C-alpha cells in the first residue's frame, strides 16, 4: 500500500495537474465544495417554500424534494449529460455536467435541512417579530435565518461529507477526480488493485472522518451555547 502511495501520491492528490486539468482528490473537494455552495441558495428557497404557508410554492418544493431524493445520482448525471448540451447548444465539459447534477441532487437534501432548521425554532420568534412590525422578509432575514442557520451548521457540514462521498460516482462520465485517478492507476499497476483501492478508500476516510468529527464538535458547542453554558 505504501509503495502505491509513494509512487502515485501526487496523482491521487491532484491528478495530472500541472500538465493537465486539476484532478485527483483536489478535484473531488472542489466539486463537492462548489456543489454544496451553489445548491445552498436553491435549498434556501426550497426550505422557505416547504416551511411557508403559500400553497403552490409548497407543493412545488415538496415535489422537487421527493423527486430528487427518490432518484439515484447516477440517473441525474445521465439526464444532465443528455439535456445540458441540448439546452445550451454547446458541448458541456464533464466537470460542469457533474456539478449541475450534484447541485440539483443536493438541493433536495439541503432543502430538507433548511426546512428542519426553520421549523426547529419556536413559533414565538416569528410571532414576536411580526407583532413588532417587521415584514415577512425582514422577519426571515433579521430574526429567523440567523438563528436557524447557526443551528443548521452541523447538518450542513455533514451534508458536505455526504457530497464528497457522492462525487465518487461522477467518474462514469469521465470527470477526473480521485476515483478516476485510482482507476487509471489500477490500469497501470496490474497486480495491486487491492492496495490501490484501499489507498483511495483511505483518502476518503481521512477527509470524511475529520470533517464529521468537526461537525460533531460544532454540535456539542452549539448545544452548550443553547444551554447558556458557554
Amino acid at each position, binding site marked *: 500500500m505504501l509503495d502505491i502511495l509513494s509512487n502515485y501520491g501526487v496523482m491521487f492528490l491532484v491528478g495530472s495537474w500541472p500538465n493537465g486539468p486539476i484532478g485527483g482528490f483536489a478535484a473531488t473537494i472542489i466539486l463537492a465544495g462548489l456543489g454544496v455552495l451553489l445548491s445552498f441558495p436553491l435549498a434556501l428557497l426550497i426550505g422557505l417554500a416547504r416551511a411557508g404557508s403559500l400553497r403552490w410554492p409548497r407543493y412545488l418544493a415538496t415535489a422537487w424534494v*421527493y*423527486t430528487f*431524493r*427518490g*432518484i*439515484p*445520482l*447516477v*440517473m441525474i448525471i*445521465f*439526464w444532465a449529460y*443528455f439535456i445540458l448540451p*441540448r439546452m445550451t447548444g454547446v458541448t458541456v465539459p464533464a466537470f460542469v455536467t457533474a456539478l449541475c447534477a450534484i447541485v440539483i441532487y443536493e438541493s433536495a437534501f439541503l432543502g430538507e435541512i433548511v426546512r428542519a432548521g426553520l421549523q426547529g425554532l419556536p413559533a414565538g420568534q416569528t410571532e414576536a417579530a411580526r407583532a413588532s412590525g417587521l415584514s415577512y422578509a425582514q422577519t426571515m432575514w433579521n430574526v429567523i435565518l440567523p438563528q436557524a442557520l447557526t443551528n443548521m451548521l452541523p447538518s450542513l457540514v455533514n451534508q458536505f*461529507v455526504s457530497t*464528497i*462521498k*457522492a*462525487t*465518487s*460516482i461522477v467518474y*462514469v462520465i469521465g470527470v477526473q477526480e480521485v*476515483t478516476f485517478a*485510482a482507476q487509471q492507476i*489500477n490500469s497501470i499497476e496490474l*497486480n*495491486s*488493485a*487491492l*492496495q*490501490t*483501492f*484501499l489507498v*483511495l*478508500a483511505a483518502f*476518503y*476516510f481521512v477527509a*470524511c*472522518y475529520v470533517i*464529521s468529527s468537526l461537525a460533531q464538535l460544532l454540535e456539542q458547542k452549539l448545544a452548550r451555547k443553547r444551554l447558556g453554558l458557554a
Partner: protein
Amino acid sequence: MEFDWGFLGTGNYAQKLATGVLTTLELFGTAWVGGFIIALLIVALRAVPFKPLGMLMRLFVEYHRNVPTVVQIMVWYFGMPQLLPDDLRMWINRGQSEFLFATVALSLNVSAYFSEDIRSGLRAIPHTQVEAGRSIGLSAVSVMRYVTVPQALRISVPPLLNRSLILFKDTSLAMVIGVTELTYQVKAIENLTFRSFEVFAISTLIYLACSLLIMGLGAWFGKRFPPAFKV
C-alpha cells in the same frame, strides 16, 4: 424532439429492462436481509465488554460510513480476489461474481448504518423503564412486549427505512462493476438505440415509484407510531 416508444417492442429491449428491474430488486432484497443480519451481529458484539472487539466494531462502522459506497464495491470486486487462492478465484469468476461482490459490499455497507440505528433505539430506553415495568408486576417478556420494544421500534424504524431508501438508490452503483441492474441496462439500451430520453424517462419513473413506496412507508409509520417521547 420527437419521442418514439416503438423501440420497446423491437429486439429484446423490453426484456432487458425487465431483467434490470428484477436484478435491482434482487440486489436490494439480498443486501437488505444480509445487512440486517450482520447489523444484529454487530449490535450483539458491541455489547460484549471486551475493549479490542468494541474498537474493531467501531472501525468497521466508521470505515463503511466514511468511504463512498462505490469505492467499497470496487475494493471488493477488484481488490479482494487478489487475496483468494487461484482455484477459488476461478470458481467465483465462472459464476456471476459481479452480483456476489456487489451484494457483499452493499450488505456490509448498510449493516454499519443499520447497527447504529438499532443501537440508538436500544440506548434511548432508560433502564428505569424496565424496572418500573417489573415492579408493577409485568414479566420480563411482557416488559419487552409492552414497554421497551414498542418504544425502541418507534425510534429505530424511521432511520432504518430512510437507510433502506438510500440502499435502494445505491444498488445503481453496482453498474460500475457490470452488475446488470436497471441503470446498467439503461446505459446498454441507450447505446444500442440512442433513444436516451425514452429510456431515461422509463427508468427514472421506475426508480421514483419504488422510492416513493419506501418514503410512503416511512411517512405512514411516523403517523401510525409517533415517538413515545422526545429524545
